[in-house]
C-alpha cells in the first residue's frame, strides 16, 4: 500500500514535469504545425543557462529562472527568423527537416562548448525530503510542480483569453485570412515560436537542477513532449496537461508493477491504445466533411 502511495506521489510529480514539457510544444507543434525537432535542444539550452548563471556566475537560483526563459525566447526568435521565415509556405516536411538539421548542429554545438560531462546545479532547497507518513517527496520537485502549474496557467490564459492568443490560433488555421483581419502574421510566427521556445527553456531550467545537465538530455524529453501533445490533442493545453499525467501514470505503474525494462514501453503502448480508440487524441477538435 505504501508502495502504491509512493508511486502515486511520483506520478503526480512526474506528471507535472511532463505537462511542463508538453505545453511549449503544444504551441509550436500543435498550433503552429512545425514538427519542432529543436524543442529538446531548447530544453537543454535552458538547463545550461541555469548552469551558467548559478554555477559559473554564482548568481541566485531564482534569478536564473527568468534569465533562462528570456534566453530561450531570444534563441527561439532567432531560429524562427533565420531558419523558418525563409521557408514560409514550404511544406511541413521541409521545415521539419530544417529543424532536424538545426537539432543535430545545435546539439553538437552544445557538446563542443560544454563537453559531454554532465553538470549539475545547486539549488536552495533542503536536501532532506518532505516526509508524509509512508511517502516522501523532494522540496525541489514540489517547487517544480508549482512552477509548472503556474506556467501552464499563464500559457492557457495567453492562448485562450487574449487577443494575441486568438491571433495566433487564427494565423495558423488560415494565415491569408488572418492577414486580411489585420494580423501581422510575420510577427505572430516569430512570437509564437519564441514563446514556445521560452517554455521549453523554462522546462529545462526547472528540470535541469532536478536531474543532471548534458548535451543529449533533451532528446528523451522531446520524444515525451511529442507524445504528450499528441495524447492531449494538437494545440490543446488542457489536453497536454492531462496527457502528461496519463503518461506519468502509465510509466510509474508499468515500472512498479509490470517490469522496469518495459517502463517506457508502457507509455508507448498507452499512446498506441489511446490513438486506436480516439484517433485524434483524447480531446479531439470537432471536424466535419462536406
Amino acid at each position, binding site marked *: 500500500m505504501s508502495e502504491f502511495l509512493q508511486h502515486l506521489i511520483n506520478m503526480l510529480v512526474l506528471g507535472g514535469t511532463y505537462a511542463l514539457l508538453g505545453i511549449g510544444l503544444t504551441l509550436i507543434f500543435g498550433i503552429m504545425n512545425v514538427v519542432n525537432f529543436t524543442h529538446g535542444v531548447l530544453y537543454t539550452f535552458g538547463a545550461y543557462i541555469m548552469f551558467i548563471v548559478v554555477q559559473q556566475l554564482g548568481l541566485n537560483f531564482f534569478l536564473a529562472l527568468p534569465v533562462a526563459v528570456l534566453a530561450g525566447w531570444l534563441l527561439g526568435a532567432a531560429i524562427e527568423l533565420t531558419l523558418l521565415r525563409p521557408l514560409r509556405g514550404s511544406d511541413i516536411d521541409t521545415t521539419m527537416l530544417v529543424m532536424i538539421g538545426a537539432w543535430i548542429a545545435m546539439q553538437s554545438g552544445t557538446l563542443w562548448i560544454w563537453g559531454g*560531462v*554532465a553538470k549539475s546545479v545547486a539549488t536552495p532547497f533542503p*536536501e532532506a525530503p518532505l516526509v508524509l507518513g509512508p511517502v516522501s517527496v523532494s522540496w525541489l520537485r514540489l517547487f517544480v510542480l508549482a512552477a509548472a502549474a503556474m506556467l501552464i496557467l499563464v500559457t492557457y490564459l495567453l492562448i485562450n483569453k487574449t487577443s494575441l492568443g486568438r491571433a495566433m490560433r487564427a494565423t495558423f488555421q488560415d494565415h491569408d485570412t488572418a492577414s486580411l483581419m489585420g494580423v501581422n502574421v510575420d510577427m505572430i510566427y516569430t512570437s509564437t515560436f519564441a514563446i514556445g521556445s521560452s517554455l521549453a527553456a523554462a522546462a529545462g531550467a526547472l528540470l535541469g537542477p532536478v536531474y543532471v545537465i548534458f548535451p*543529449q538530455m533533451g532528446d528523451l524529453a522531446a520524444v515525451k513532449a511529442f507524445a504528450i501533445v499528441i495524447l492531449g490533442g494538437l494545440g490543446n493545453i488542457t489536453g497536454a496537461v492531462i496527457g502528461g499525467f496519463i503518461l506519468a501514470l502509465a510509466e510509474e505503474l508499468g515500472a512498479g508493477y509490470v517490469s522496469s525494462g518495459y*517502463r517506457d514501453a508502457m507509455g508507448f503502448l498507452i499512446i498506441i491504445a489511446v490513438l486506436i480508440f480516439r484517433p485524434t487524441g483524447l480531446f479531439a477538435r470537432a471536424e466535419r466533411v462536406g
Partner: protein
Amino acid sequence: QTIKIGVNEPLTGAFAASGTYVVNGAKIAADEINAKGGVLGKKIELVIEDNKSNPTEAAAVAEKLITSDKVPVLMGAWGSSLTLAVMPKLMEYETPMVVETSSSGKITTTGNPFIFRISPPSAVEAAAFKNIVDKLALKKVDFLVINNDWGRGTAEDFSKMMKDKGISIGLVETMDQGAQDMSAQLSKIKSSDSETVIVTTAVDQLTLIFKQAAALGLKKRIITTGGSQNPDQIIAQAGAAANGTMHLTTFLPWFPDKTPNPEATNYFIAEWKKRGFEFAGCTESFRGYDGIRTVAAAIEKAGKAEPAAIKAALWNINIKGLNGDIVFRKSGPEGKESGQSQPNVYLIEINDGKVEMKTL
C-alpha cells in the same frame, strides 16, 4: 617516420563524455612514451577516430584505421556493442585490438584471437568481490542496473556469485540508458525486504539515483559496481545524498600509494591535472592510459610494428598498469582464444563528502 596506433572511441553521441576521457588518457600515455624516446626508436602517433557511439560507424572506423591509415594495432571501442561491431573487422584484417572499457563477457568468449582486454568483465569483478562479501554481512540484495550488456551481465554474474555464498537475491530492476527518472524503480526497491542494493550504471545515472533515493527516503546500503563511478563527480553533484554509498572500483586515484604502481599513478594524475582536465575524469581516462601503454609495450616486445608480431607479443607482455598487472590470460574457445588481464578491484566508501578506502 612514426608508429601509428588506431584509437576508435565515441567522441560524439551518447558516450561522448567517456570516450573523450579515454582519449585524453591515451594522449598522456603517448606523450609520455614519446618524451622517453618512443618505441623502437620511433615516435608513436595516435590516429584518433570518432565512432559516434554507433556500432555501424565503429566498424567503419576500424576499417578506415586499418586500411587507409594502415595502423598495425587498435585500441577501442569503449562500449560493448561498439567493440562487438568492430570484431569481425579484426578477423578480416588480422589486426589486434586492445579493449580498454567494454565489459561484455561475449567479447572474450566468442573466439576472436585478436582481442586483448584490460578491463574486467563483470564475472571478474564478481569474483574479486567475493572476498569482500563476507565482511559486509550481506543477507539479501536487490539490483538496479542499466539495461545493457554491462548492467545485465553484472546482475547475472553477481547474482550467481552471491547465491553460491548463500545470499538471497531480491528484485532485479533495470533502467534505460539515458533515463532520468528512476523514482518508480527506487520506490519499488524501497518497499522490498532487502538491505542492500547493487547499482550498476554510468556516473550520471548514479548521481540521479542517489539524489532520487534520498528524496524517496530510501535507506538501504548502496554498492555500485563497474568502475565508472567517478566518485568525485558523484560527490560534487549528489552532495549529501552520496554519503554512505560504497563503490567497487578498479582504480584509486585518491590513494596513489595504495595502487599497484604508485609512480605511474602519481605521474598520470599530475599530468591529468596539468592539462586542466577535471579530476573526476581520472577513473575513466586511466584505461586509455593503460591501453596505450599496453600497446606500446607489445610493439616494443614485437620488435616491429606489424599486426601479427604485435598480436604475438601481446601474449608475452607484463606491465604494471595503474590498476594491477597487465598480463593476458587465455579466454574463450580453444585455438582461438582472446586475451584477458585481471585488474585489481577495490571497495571504497563515500563519507562526509570524502572518499575512504574500505579496509576489509
